[in-house]
């Protein structure tokens, strides 16, 4: 049975001075990470956003030492691009920048008046009981590479799936010299082909 969870996070941005309220619902789908890839003049930038559940199995704020360790280990994984993405050797890419951190969804949420709608699949083995005050959390990693041969960047593999068993799918958007495109990768088809 697929344990893909779909839920919506309600993010309320209160604008106190204007006494005007903006309600904005962002989509957040468990099991699905998004990746953005841009290539220009030998520069390759890869941005990854993954739901916390996919990576560490929970999205509440890490409070116990175990949870904190898990988050720290995950961030360490993200800081090692080779375990997340594989680039063709022929392209000769060198890492120039790497950044990884955890976005938690519960900043500025002291009002306590936001909707929180969880739609859990059966067989859910994570404990979301402590999730009451928090929204969803996302891991965000970005990499920048300098490549010798941009034209050799024809495929990008994602060993990412092997690392994080809860990750089911990656929605990729890319822009290269030949245009923009999108692709869906899954754990059994974890390679992106760039035209």
């Amino acid at each position, binding site marked *: 049975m697929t344990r893909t969870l779909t839920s919506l996070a309600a993010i309320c941005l209160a604008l106190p001075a204007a006494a005007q309220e903006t309600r904005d619902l962002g989509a957040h789908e468990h099991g699905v990470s998004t990746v953005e890839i841009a290539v220009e003049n030998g520069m390759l930038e890869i941005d990854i956003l993954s739901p916390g559940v996919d990576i560490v199995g929970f999205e509440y704020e890490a409070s116990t030492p175990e949870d904190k360790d898990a988050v720290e280990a995950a961030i360490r994984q993200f800081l090692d691009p080779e375990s997340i993405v594989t680039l063709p050797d022929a392209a000769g890419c060198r890492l120039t920048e790497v950044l990884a951190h955890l976005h938690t969804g519960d900043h500025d949420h002291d009002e306590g008046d936001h909707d929180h709608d969880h739609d859990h699949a059966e067989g859910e083995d994570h404990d979301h009981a402590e999730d009451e005050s928090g929204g969803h959390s996302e891991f965000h990693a970005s990499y920048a590479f300098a490549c010798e041969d941009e034209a050799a960047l024809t495929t990008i593999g994602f060993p990412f799936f092997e690392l994080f068993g809860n990750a089911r799918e990656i929605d990729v958007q890319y822009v290269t010299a030949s*245009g*923009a*495109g*999108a692709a869906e990768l899954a754990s059994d088809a974890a390679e992106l082909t760039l035209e």
Partner: protein
Amino acid sequence: MILRLAFASLMARALTVGMTILAIALSVALFLAVEKVRTGAKASFADTISGTDLIVGARSGSVQLLLYSVFRIGNATNNISWQSYRDIAGRDEIDWIVPISLGDSHRQFRVMGTTSGFFEHYRYRGGRMLEIGQGHGLDDLYDAVIGAEVAATLGYDVGDPIIVSHGVASFTHHDDQPFRVAGIVERTGTPVDRTVIVSLEAIEAIHVDWQTGARTPGAPTPVDDIRQMDLTPDAITAALIGMNSRLQIFGLQRWINTYPEEPLLAILPGVALQELWQIVGIAERALIGVSVMVVVTALLGMMAMIFSSLDERRREMAIWRAMGARPVTILGLLVLEAALMAALGAALGMVILYGGLVVAQPWIDAAYGLWLPISVPSARELVVLALVIGAAALASLLPALRAYRLSLADGMMVRT
């Protein structure tokens, strides 16, 4: 030797064989034509916009935004306020930004308000610029530049007056402020051909006397007064953006999509197109399925033809056997005949396809804006042809095996 025999045997039954070959040829031509139209339509859509990194509109679906802003299909759910537009235009990452304003029409054609930047930055078919064949661009407030198809359909020349209608398919006209055809854009094969382009200020100008969708009563504001007015629009429909660097596209997209003051949507045209193909994919597969079934039907017809020919050829087969041909030779002969028929059918199919393309290409381009390139058969097409020939050989195995088993006894027996 056996090839010559097979060929001669086919020639001996020229009529039935000819019909079978024709059936295969037509089915192959249909299949390949469906492929051509499918890939041609995709390429045509993809060619409509190039060089634009982001399209911004009111928040809706990315496919919807792409369709109404670029292809003039459907309508915008909402506008972008001029203030938000200024905010986006002020970003450092932006190389150029071109606002567009839709909503009015002229006869069956849409009117688009934009700036002269549109002619400068809009690219199609892999980077080609719009060319104004006759006349000039938007110089005066009441100048209109029309697409090639607008000019051809309505018989307009440079200098002709144009009255813009309020809304699409409406009976109210902005007849107090007529436009003048200033230029005609060379044919592009894109929706620009079917568009009347005016300046953004002109769209504002023709709505000066309009409030909440209706003309305010009383005498219209004189044109000279309108020319003195500040014609900065309050809102636009969408904007096309070119970036300084591709690396900043996703960053700006995120900034626009989370712009707090107004719900906006920024899309990458290529990505939205791919989403569109995913939706269209089901219909596409159905089309392919139907054309595959047509090929299968033609092959079944061939099989039936071989089966019935076995009956008339029982003597022939028996004589082969009597003269020392092994059953395998008979089997080989029949399979070879089928493969030959399929090969001839496939070749004829290609001739029909390319002949048809040569004849229909200009017409399809003019009528549907769909450019079907005449190119050397792609690897994919050759694979299809090989598959058809292989399938024919496979299909002929059934009657061939029957001949293999029966050739001697059946032919020798005298039937009454």
